[in-house]
């Protein structure tokens, strides 16, 4: 388990973190969501044992980062938002170097490097110079480096940043595989669709504070109600009249070319709404849930879109 309690960190006059508290279950893939400068990297660096908080406490895998930062550093696989590779080395030499730094017995290093390259999908790139690898490959090589000490916890700072779509898909698959291996992961990003697909729970950080935390279901607030935006061809008031009296409906707001309907949670509510519209001869062109994406949650909890916060 990873915990942070009232974490604060100041850089001179600027507070990068202010009273940030969170709890991450063992085995979870936790998405740390927030705009640039919100405090994501500062949080991760504290959890990696690389930065001392100004106040507050944190623990990783049961080890206090304040009293045993060196132990934490050895139990955490840290992948920063840069590649951190050396030129004029092959991928094998790169992993061998870091394995030596972790004091892995020399007899085990060759096998370990091969296994890790296999895990990250680069088995045929062992003897490729690091500088010749693509951006996505370098990212995966860095993930392999972070996995060298077989850490129970992985901290990935903006892992999808700058990757092409294919590399992102590969990274997502890799994260899923590591999740299946039982690793606890904290993945920071401001690219929300990426996080939504790879994380099991989320924390929203804004201006150094954790403003919301939970699973997507918990965060979207959809336990008992949800909102649908229904685009219709024709008169929206006719559509509104058709929906009047549908028992699953809670509230209705007509817009330009659409109606927003608050309904009780559940698939039957959507079905009932659509049936009512079709029965009234209304042509429905689209039905979209509103407020159920990470972006919507972020907008709700911070009061502004992610792009404006950044």
């Amino acid at each position, binding site marked *: 388990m990873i915990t942070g309690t009232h974490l604060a960190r100041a850089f001179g006059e600027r507070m990068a973190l202010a009273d940030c508290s969170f709890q991450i279950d063992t085995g979870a893939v936790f998405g740390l969501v927030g705009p640039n400068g919100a405090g994501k990297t500062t949080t991760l660096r504290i959890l*990696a*044992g*690389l*930065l*001392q908080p100004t106040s507050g406490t944190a623990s990783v895998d049961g*080890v206090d*980062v*304040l*009293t*045993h*930062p*060196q*132990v934490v*550093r*050895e139990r*955490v696989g*840290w992948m*920063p938002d*840069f590649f*951190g*590779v*050396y*030129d*004029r*080395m092959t991928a094998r*030499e790169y992993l061998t*170097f*870091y394995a*030596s*730094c*972790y*004091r892995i*017995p*020399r007899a085990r290093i060759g096998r370990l490097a091969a296994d890790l390259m296999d895990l990250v999908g680069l088995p045929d790139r062992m003897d490729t110079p690091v500088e010749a690898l693509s951006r996505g490959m370098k990212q995966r090589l860095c993930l392999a*480096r972070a996995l060298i*000490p077989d850490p129970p916890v992985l901290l990935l700072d903006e892992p999808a940043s700058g990757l092409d779509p294919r590399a992102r898909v590969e990274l997502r698959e890799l994260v899923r595989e590591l999740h299946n291996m039982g690793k606890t992961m904290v993945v920071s990003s401001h690219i929300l669709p990426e996080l939504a697909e790879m994380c099991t729970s989320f924390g929203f950080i804004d201006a150094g504070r954790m403003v919301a935390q939970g699973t997507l279901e918990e965060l979207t607030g959809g336990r008992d109600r949800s909102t649908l935006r229904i685009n219709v061809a024709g008169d929206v008031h006719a559509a509104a009249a058709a929906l009047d009296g549908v028992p699953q409906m809670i509230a209705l707001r007509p817009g330009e070319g659409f109606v927003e309907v608050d309904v009780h949670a559940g698939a039957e509510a959507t079905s009932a709404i659509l049936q009512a519209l079709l029965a009234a001869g209304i042509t429905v062109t689209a039905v979209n849930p509103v407020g159920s994406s990470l972006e919507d949650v972020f907008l709700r909890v911070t009061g502004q879109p992610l792009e404006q916060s950044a």
Partner: protein
Amino acid sequence: MTRMGALVWNPIVAREARTRMRSKRAAFILFCWLAALGVVAILAYASAGNQSASVTVLAHSGVTVFDALVAVVVALLLLLVPGLVGGSIAGERERQTLDLLLCTRVRPWRVVIGKLAASLAFIGFLLVASLPILSVVALLGGIAWSDILIVVGLGALTAVTIGSMSILFSAISKGPTGAIVCSYVAMFILLVGPLVLGTYLLAQGFGSGGGTAVSLPSGYISGPAIAPSVSSAPPLIMALSPGVAIGSEVASISSQNCASAVYSGFGGSFGSSAIYSCAAVTFDRIDSGPLNGWHIWQVYAVFAIALSALCIGMAIVALRGRVPWPRRAHSEVT
């Protein structure tokens, strides 16, 4: 790996050595180094006059070549070391690999020592590569092996000292450029500062008539730049400059060997009364005070070792401060 082996083995040295030797820059430096030594050796030998004469004449040529080679080697060391060492840790910081390194089980002291050793190993490699050229001196004679070893030792110590100063700047600077510039400035101050200060004090007549004095080596021939037994602190200050320490030792060796023309090359020793015009020796020994009897190079060696230890210690402290360390005494963590 045994416990002792794990203590000595430093993966940073191995990585640095491997990647450095793969760079075109390393090959270029090696080429320039050997070319400079070769050219200087040939020019010095040619300028020494009649090369077909007796062993004593050859010995004189050996002294001339030795003087020239030492000057070039020291100058190249001073030029190379700050550039090689200054960017080492700062380069890791710029590449943002320093944190990754400190996340491993490599401790800051190992990073500092590893970086310094790796850079100095390259200097050692250059020196080994230049042995064929340096052996010309032994072939010609005029300089004893023990003298060569002292000068080589002083050169190595100077490389370590300047390297230690550079590694300190590398540990505290944000980028390699600043670190390298500071390293060159510090090297220049170390080289010239004591000389300027000592000369200034001498010019002011500081300390004349008491305290520490200097004596000339037995091989002193022509007029000294500093009259014997006229000063106290200035020679001690001047001795802190690697240029003065190595220069005085080389001049002392050259003048002694010129005066007695002792040929101690491969062919053994041959006495001769022939005297050639050797370089003037200024001073080579402290003649009074608490360091009475010390050679200038010995004073410098003690200072250089102390300065190196101080700089390395400060670099380790600076690097340790980059990441948190236990607040309390380390307790067991399961």
